[in-house]
């Protein structure tokens, strides 16, 4: 055979080991950060099943370091022995859980309905309210994001007291809907902007009314965006603590307030706190795993123009 004419140059041959180390570094950093992100969740999960000595010794791996016990769930009345028995703790816990769920879902729904309509209108028609045109109206909505909750908190405390809305779920729902509305409008405006106007023009020629075209043609197309906005609202409202701590006392108390009210006692009942915290994060962890792509879509709105 002939003599090899083409040789790999020096730099090409040096490239392979460099490539391998880069891979190792990349995966190393990725795994390290994934560990940092997930370890607190694992710690909470495992502490739920630990007795006090196991916590003190810092045992981490179940069945190797320590024997899992039902302590955490028993403290909420949810362990196998207690689940069919009467339990005041469980009732209290479930009440808080439902409050959180109803408030989060209710306010997110209101925000998505109001916000989608407003964003659609602003992306399609020209308005004039006094001196305000479309751009100003959009800015008015989105600028609400800047408003820190503390500015509204104390006035609302007084107003709700006068309106007998203190410690009611409907009061919280209205307030939460307000806090997430700018985010919904931000996401949906972006989304409607990417849907061509020709679609509605065709629908209108076919004899649809404006609202008919919006409801039957545009909404189905915009549904992914609405789901994204809804989930992000859900995350923010489910986790909200500040307003709930100020405006609720017993009736409408939400889960975060319940968790917070237990932390103060510096209790030795690690497992019970862990179980409560777990209950507070679990719904969103599941949503995060299943619907991750919607969340990313929602948060990326406005990032790419």
């Amino acid at each position, binding site marked *: 055979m002939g003599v090899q004419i083409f040789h790999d140059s020096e730099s090409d041959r040096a490239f392979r080991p460099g490539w391998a180390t880069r891979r190792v570094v*990349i995966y190393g950093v*990725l795994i390290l*950060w*994934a560990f940092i*992100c997930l370890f*607190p969740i694992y710690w*909470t999960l495992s502490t739920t099943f630990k007795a006090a000595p196991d916590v*003190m*010794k*810092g045992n981490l791996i179940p069945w190797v370091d320590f024997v899992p016990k039902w302590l955490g769930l028993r403290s909420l009345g949810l362990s196998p022995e207690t689940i069919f028995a009467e339990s005041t703790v469980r009732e209290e816990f479930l009440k808080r859980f439902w409050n959180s769920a109803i408030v989060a879902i209710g306010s997110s729904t209101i925000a998505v309905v109001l916000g989608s*309509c*407003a964003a659609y*209108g602003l992306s399609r*028609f*020209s*308005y004039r309210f006094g001196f305000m045109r*479309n751009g100003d*109206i959009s*800015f008015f*909505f989105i600028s609400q994001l*800047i408003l*820190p*909750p*503390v*500015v*509204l908190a*104390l*006035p609302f405390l*007084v*107003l709700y007291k006068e*309106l007998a809305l203190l410690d009611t779920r409907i009061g919280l729902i209205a307030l939460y*809907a*307000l806090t997430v*509305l700018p985010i919904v409008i931000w996401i949906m*405006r972006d989304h409607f902007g990417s849907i061509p*106007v020709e679609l*509605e*023009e065709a629908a209108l020629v076919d004899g649809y*009314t404006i*609202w008919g075209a919006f409801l039957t043609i545009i909404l189905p197309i915009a549904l992914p965006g609405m789901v994204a906005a809804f989930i992000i609202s859900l*995350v923010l409202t489910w*986790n909200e603590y*500040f307003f709930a*701590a*100020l405006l609720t006392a017993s009736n409408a108390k939400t889960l975060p307030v319940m*968790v*917070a009210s237990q*932390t103060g006692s510096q209790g030795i009942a690690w497992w019970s706190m*862990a179980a409560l*915290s777990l209950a*507070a994060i679990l719904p*969103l*962890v599941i*949503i995060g*795993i299943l619907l*991750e792509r919607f*969340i*990313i879509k929602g948060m*990326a709105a406005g*990032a790419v123009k």
Partner: protein
Amino acid sequence: MSTAEGDFLHVVTADRVSDSRRRFGKTITWGSAGLLAGVTLLQIFHHYGFIDVGLENWRPALYAYLVWAVCLCYSRVLLYGEHGKRALFVLPAVLFVVSMVIFPLIFAVGIAFSSWNLSSPDGRQFNGLDNLRQMWTDPFYWNALRNMVLYTLAIAVEYAIAFGLALLLNAQIRARKFFRVAFLMPLMLSPVAVSWMIGKSMLEVRFGPVSRLARELGWDSPSFFSSPEVARLTIMVIDAWMFIPFMMIMILAGLQAIPRELHEAAEVDGAPAWKRFWEITFPLMLPVSITAILIRIIFKLKLADIIINVTAGGPGGATDSVTSFIFREYRDRSNVGYGTLLAIVYLVLIVIALTILMKLADRWMRPRY
């Protein structure tokens, strides 16, 4: 709003709005407005004790407002036909926001210049500029404001980490979805639960896993909340842990939108990796970065939940954010007036700072490439 006039949907409809319909529309608008005014007036008289109509709370005024809002929306359709139906897209949201923000804000300004202890029977007492004077000499409020500046500066580090992670996620890697979900997780968690999970449990001095690790690494007596500097740093780290995913995802979206050809062209030209980053990726990412940082700053300025639950402002108010300080101020003294004044001063400062920042950002965002 960048949409040019030409992008709008133009609808031409021939609406024949009869005189009786127009009259009816006007009647319900003004009728319900009259109802609202009447009920409100009645309530005010009742409140100040001129007349007694046996009203326990202000609910009737709320209902009258709702009736008025519905009538206003309905009358748009009655008066302007198809054209009026457009207003229905925006009007409900506007009415909602105005009633929930503008009205309470005006109310807040009123409260801010009074001393009002909710638990005392005296009710509201106008005290002029006393609150403002008290604020001027309140070292804890100024300390909280300074803390907010420090907390906001920490965003620079968060941004660097988020950018690095986004670059890694954008590289050719396996199990990308797993890493994306894992990195996203902290953002989904409730701040209160995180306060317990990390702040109270993992950072526990005796047996928290982080303290153990710190001891292994040679820090003899790790304590995360005893000295002001360390406590502040700990709060920053916990908050960063929760919010880095947010910036990471925005930056990742931006990175994925950069056309591949640009990198390939630079690679062919023989530009080394770091140069490709600084000369292509980073400048192209500038608009996205600025948006992400601005939104992050806005969220950072609301920081409170972690501080309230982990340190309660301690040690000695060293970790207080403005929000957590006002929260405790209200909890301890239940004085609505002073707290509201502090909040309004904070709002004014935020609006000024963000306006300047947005003007600057606007200048930087103008493309230079």
